[in-house]
């Protein structure tokens, strides 16, 4: 651990009663490239100290980038003054407790930890050479190590080290593009050598067809399914929205909300995602069934809204001031794989669209799960179960619940992805019946 535990305890002492600290030391290395050239490199070393002071139901939060005593004392004084100014919150606002058990300890990858600019360049160069001179390469390669501690004045002290390697490669040729996104806690588990081949296979020299108008079956590849699932989870599967009747699934526990082929869980302990042991409140991340065989099985919670989940937080508290709101939110979503092979999924499409990636998916009406977004990179037309043509990018405006209810088949292979509002989302390809998507 790079964070000094004694400094953390000393800081807690200086902040006094009601203090909770989240301390993270982040080391990030990034290589960006476009048109097969390096466009930027980034290397960042940062210590972040978030303190939450709660006294008499009043809350003040501070962020600083040091555990030095003088700075901590100055922040403690400032927050103390703020608490004095705040009115009193009614006692009993907290809805539950953290699970008392241990948190999962994610595996730390020494390969990721040691990866440097030369390693990132080697990855880039491998893919660039694999694509050849007639194919452009854009994207980024990132390695990061985050050491984090959550501790409070009641004796809570949790620590974990999270490593992550991610690679995005977008290949373009003749105005057509295809993309691959891979990420893993262990950089050694990323198959860099295979990426150029995957991209070249996507850039197949097949005809371009005109835009289809109407509705048809749509095959969402895993990265597209992941974007849909993450947006749905963020919009509908949090305890606060559920309890306050703000979401599409409010009051529907045990009722059907998706096709019977759909099972979804949130699980920070599952190594098929990007595991992490605990949330910003120090609550262990619990494996939480959300949709089981199409029926709503649960939602995710934090301490304040743990009443919805039996009085125990599922470990999904979000940082104060989080850009995406204050409500508990899924962090590690998984859709269960099905049995269908890619050939079987394509055969199921018949005549329809294959979508590799959904981009800029934005919520229009949260309670209706109405969203709008576009396809990006390889979008194909499928005829008689075969990929026969490139299709122009499409804007879809659709209800996510209708799409989830119209799933006819689920692929056997899953891919790991991420969103800016979700640590990981792991999903298979899904075949959606005609109806929800209009072209």
């Amino acid at each position, binding site marked *: 651990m790079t964070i000094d535990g004694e400094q953390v305890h000393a800081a807690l002492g200086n902040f006094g009663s009601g203090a909770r600290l989240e301390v993270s030391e982040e080391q990030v*290395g*990034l290589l*960006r490239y*476009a048109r097969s050239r*390096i*466009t*930027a*490199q*980034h*290397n*960042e*070393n940062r210590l972040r100290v978030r303190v939450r002071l709660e006294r008499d139901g*009043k*809350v*003040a*939060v*501070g*962020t600083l*980038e*040091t555990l030095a005593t003088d*700075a901590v004392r100055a*922040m403690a004084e400032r*927050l103390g003054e*703020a608490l004095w*100014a*705040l*009115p009193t*919150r009614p006692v009993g606002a907290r809805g539950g407790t953290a699970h008392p058990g241990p948190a999962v300890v994610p595996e730390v990858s020494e390969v990721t930890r040691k990866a*440097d*600019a*030369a390693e*990132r*360049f080697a990855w880039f160069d491998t893919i660039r050479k694999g694509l050849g001179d007639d194919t452009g390469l*854009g*994207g*980024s390669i990132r390695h990061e190590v985050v050491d984090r501690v959550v501790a409070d004045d009641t004796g809570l002290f949790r620590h974990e080290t999270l490593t992550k390697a991610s690679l995005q490669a*977008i290949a373009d040729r003749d105005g057509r593009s295809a993309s691959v996104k891979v990420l893993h806690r262990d950089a050694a588990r990323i198959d860099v050598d295979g990426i150029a081949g995957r991209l070249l296979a996507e850039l197949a020299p097949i005809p371009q067809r005109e835009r289809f108008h109407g509705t048809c079956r749509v095959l969402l590849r895993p990265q597209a399914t992941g974007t849909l699932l993450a947006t749905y989870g963020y919009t509908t599967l949090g305890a606060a929205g559920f309890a306050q*009747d*703000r979401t599409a699934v409010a009051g529907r526990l045990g009722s059907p909300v998706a096709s019977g082929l759909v099972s979804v869980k949130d699980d920070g302990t599952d190594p098929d995602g990007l595991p992490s042991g605990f949330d910003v409140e120090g609550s262990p991340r619990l494996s939480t069934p959300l949709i089981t065989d199409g029926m709503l099985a649960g939602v995710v919670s934090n301490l304040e809204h743990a009443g919805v989940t039996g009085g125990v937080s599922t470990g999904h508290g979000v940082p*104060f*001031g989080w*850009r*995406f*709101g204050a409500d508990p939110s899924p962090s590690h979503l998984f859709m269960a794989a099905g049995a269908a092979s890619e050939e079987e999924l394509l055969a199921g499409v018949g005549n329809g669209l294959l979508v590799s990636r959904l*981009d*800029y*998916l*934005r*919520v*229009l009406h949260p*309670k209706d799960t*109405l969203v*709008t*977004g*576009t396809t*990006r990179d390889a979008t194909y037309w499928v005829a008689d179960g075969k990929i026969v043509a490139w299709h122009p*990018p499409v*804007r879809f*405006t659709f209800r996510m619940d209708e799409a989830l209810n119209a799933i006819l088949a689920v692929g056997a292979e899953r891919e790991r992805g991420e969103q*800016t509002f979700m640590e990981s989302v792991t999903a298979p390809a899904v075949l959606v019946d005609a109806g929800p998507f209009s072209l």
Partner: protein
Amino acid sequence: MRDIAEAVLGLLPSAVTYGDVRVLHRTHELVLAEHDGPGDLAHEESTGLGLRVVVDGQWGFAATHRLDRAGLAEVVGRALAQARAVGAGPGIDMGEPVTTQTRWRSPMVVDPFTVPVSKKLDLLAAAVREAETAGPLVQKVEASMDFFRDDKVFANTEGALIEQTLTESGAGLVVFASDGNDIQRRSYPQAVPRTIRGQRGDFATAGYEHVESLGLVEEAARVGSEAVALLSAPPCPEETTTLIVSGSNMALLLHECAGHPMEADRALGSEVSLAGGTYASPERRGSFRYGSPIVNVFADATLPGALGSFGYDDEGVPAQRTELITDGVFVDYLSGRESAAALGQQSSGAARADGWQRLPLVRMTNLCLVPGDSSLAEMIAGTDRGVFVDMTKSVSIDDMRLNFRLGTEVGYEIRDGKLGRLLKNCTYTGVTPRFWADCDALGGQDEWQVHGIPSCNKGEPLQVAHIGHGTVPARFRNVRVGTK
């Protein structure tokens, strides 16, 4: 901070053909009051430096929070190692050297960090109380203020040394209403397309006087009432009709259709991994028809008090005005030094970084629509049938910045030159040049207003920029509107 910047440059070896360092201390305060809680307060302090170097024609960048002697040596080592790790490059052309030595401080009347928290909370609590007067269907009210101060030093190996202090202030209010079946929201004075906590409302490069000028308390009851009224309003009809957008809604429309596409780094392909490309390719400069001849757009980082104003950008280039669209034709880009040099021109002073730990990117400053000679009242009076929309609720646009859909908080039908029924869930869609080609009226100078938006996302790692948009209401013909 100046000593640190000079010390870092002093550590660079002769192999560095260009280097710049930014040392920055950022202070941020958020004060928030809620309908169902007493409010929260957050205070952030962030200090560190970011160092860019060019070695053998390749960039290296490293950032650190450690500002002691060992930390400075270490960050220099990391930046150099990064540049050297990727082999010799084709060279980096930065254009003309930047050698300015100066100090600049943004104007303000009342330092927001000296205003007592209790005074801020009183104002916000009063606004929340007023919003609650709209009745029991009000489900959630959030009123917040945010204040930022950046003290920063920029220095480079060309001789520049610039010290700047920027103070920004903003506040806003959002009301959610629910009848059990539907949820609607209204915001004031500016909406945010995502659900976020704090950092909402209208912002300016100014002091506490900006917050006091917004009239949060005075407007709160109306905002609450409109949120409740939307619950029983009919949905926006699905039709192709005449659309009139408010100045507030125009801010995001202009942002997505003209702002991001005319960032030079995007046009040069540097942003493909995350944000995508643009229709505004270099060969189209001077000939591509963006919109009708009444459409003129410029970027201006010198507008007094506007959120995208500053003295010098994060490469030391002076704030300036740049024409982007003239008589409906795309004519130029927002640019930084490297992207400008690649296009054979001078930087437009738009390289900005979100904090010390991020690289400068080409960002919007204050992107503005030149006013026309109409007015909102005239536009409505001159419309037989159409829809008027206000406040952006959601935005989605494709990776080439062409096909977009905007959702809005509120709409009104227009019948026979008059505003009619309130409409909910209004969205509209278009393809950028076709949509703007049908712009036939723009509000006049007296309706021109700068909207300060503290939430423009770009880049990897993600950066959030504070920008301004000077806009007027505008009318567009033949627009597809509806709820889907």
